[in-house]
């Protein structure tokens, strides 16, 4: 899904800054509820209980049954029996699975860095005193409303036909990027960054607008240059946005699926197969239901671990600036 700065560390909540959002009611103080003494009106339970039941049924039960089947040899149909940890042991000897982890992590790291750097740079540009700001902002946000699968098909054609033809015209080696096992990932990263930057630009722009201009005025009086101003004022003040964008974009890139289907379908060979793709193919088409559930469970723990490490690391750095 999407990103939201955690309100606890959002710059907007710092007391010395004016409220930044017109839509936000000004009172932010959490008062003691007078209902604390009385019983909870029964209506509150009616509001949550059906939702909890449905959520449990459609989210938690699949997770739990999935975990259970990861200890079986279930093919997705027919009989099954418990096989203990053997699925998990096999996973670590399966080169296709290991490759998919390697590719997915590599892809996610490269894309996260590129998306965040590019989005922050463009957001800084859009936040400065440029002409047609609203129009440019509107243009940069367009990719957000476009389906990444379809964008993938368009870029597929560009990589396969237009780019080689342009390269030929320039006397460069011409070939389909996506057909080259060692460079197909570049095409996937370009497509992903093109689409994902849009959303991150808007989030960074929202963050930048929480910074009062007076701070820059003060910095100018102190004689700070552009880079110094960025390092000492802008970046620390949008630190919370940076953290949350890094964590959420990394997490969503680890689930990459649509654009790979459209661009390479995992190929050439299996060189661009992501984890989600291996689970999808093995689970639905390969009769590896139990085995791929073991893969999915490992994947779940990897995502949780990575998110925590990122949060710890980035928040510590955010605090020390």
């Amino acid at each position: 899904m999407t990103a939201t700065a955690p309100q606890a560390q959002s710059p907007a909540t710092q007391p010395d800054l004016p409220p930044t959002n017109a839509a936000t009611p000004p009172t932010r103080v959490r008062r003691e509820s007078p209902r604390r003494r009385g019983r909870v009106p029964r209506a509150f339970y009616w509001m949550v209980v059906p939702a909890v039941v449905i959520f449990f049924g459609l989210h938690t039960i699949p997770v739990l049954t999935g975990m259970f089947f990861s200890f079986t040899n279930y093919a997705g149909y027919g009989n099954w029996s418990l096989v203990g940890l053997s699925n998990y042991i096999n996973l670590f000897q399966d080169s296709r699975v290991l490759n998919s982890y390697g590719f997915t992590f590599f892809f996610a790291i490269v894309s996260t860095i590129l998306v965040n750097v590019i989005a922050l740079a463009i957001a800084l540009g859009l936040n400065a005193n440029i002409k047609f700001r609203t129009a440019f902002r509107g243009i940069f946000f367009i990719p957000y409303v476009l389906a990444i699968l379809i964008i993938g098909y368009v870029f597929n054609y560009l990589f396969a036909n237009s780019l080689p033809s342009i390269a030929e015209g320039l006397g460069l080696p011409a070939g389909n990027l996506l057909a080259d096992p060692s460079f197909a990932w570049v095409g996937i990263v370009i497509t992903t960054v093109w689409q994902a930057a849009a959303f991150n630009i808007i989030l960074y722009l929202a963050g930048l607008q929480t910074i009062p201009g007076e701070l820059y005025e003060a910095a100018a009086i102190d004689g700070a240059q552009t880079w110094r101003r960025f390092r000492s004022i802008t970046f620390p003040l949008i630190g919370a946005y940076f953290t949350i964008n890094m964590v959420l974009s990394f997490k969503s890139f680890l689930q990459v699926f649509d654009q790979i289907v459209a661009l390479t379908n995992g190929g050439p060979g299996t060189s661009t197969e992501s984890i989600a793709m291996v689970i999808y193919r093995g689970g639905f088409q390969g009769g590896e239901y139990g085995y791929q559930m073991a893969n999915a469970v490992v994947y779940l723990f990897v995502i949780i671990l990575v998110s925590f490490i990122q949060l710890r690391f980035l928040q510590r750095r955010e605090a020390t600036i």
Partner: protein
Amino acid sequence: MSATTTETRSVTTAHHSAREHRNRRPVLATLSGGNGGTNWWLTALIAVCSLTVLIPLYFTIITALKSPDQLGGTGFELPTSIRWENFADAYELTNFPRALLNTALITVGAVVLTLVTNSLVAYAIARNMHRKFFKGLYFYFLAAIFVPFPIIMLPVVKETALLGLDTPVGLVLLYTVYGLSFNIFIFTAYINSIPIELEEAARMDGAGTWGVFWKVVFPLLAPMNATVGILTCVWAWNDFLLPLVILSDPSAQTLPLAQYVFQGQFNTNYTVAFASYLMALAPLLVVYIVAQKWVVSGVMRGSVK
């Protein structure tokens, strides 16, 4: 920082209300660019960067308008003659009206159900955070943010097939349920900022808990409803994986799914394929262009919270 700083700040804050934070930006721009005027160098740079967004869109449009024999070369040349039949062919081939209707119904259903239910759950949780039961629920829902979809994918397909939910209705339900975690997160933050006195006044007038929610809280949530509505709409409209695995009936195909399914039939007929892509992208693109300011500010609001 010097004394001047504090003075400057108190003066400026006095002059600028929170609504007018735009007015502060020229200060920043003055410093980073020219002499108080527009920074034309930066404008040019941003314009060049925006071409990276516009060129693929231009390419999609012109390719959809060409006849197959115009496809040679780099493909960036303007069409010499326009072949409107591409759209008619794509319309027929992918059964476009059917897919459009499915996508629209699923999206509208998901947005409406999400707004009505998710805000309700968030309200009950936000107003009872001091109670163990509700606080526990909050963290239960929140924890789901860290659960990647692929782990749910295989089991939920079995489950929805079993329950007869492998239909558009099932998809609406799944979008509502899978969006809940994140939406509760942003709704509760917003509800916490609504003064509880408003609700108490309504209670004094004899409104029950439901009445208070529908008549007082839900209307106040309008800005957040817009944000959640936009995010849900874009998600449900463009989603590919969930319809791919859940929908069993081919006539229930959504627009992105149809592009995938018909890849084989487009074959090398690229112009028809691009017409089909353009038709699938166009509805949301048009809505976005018309409601651009509202959409962007809606998404920004979701992040400032």
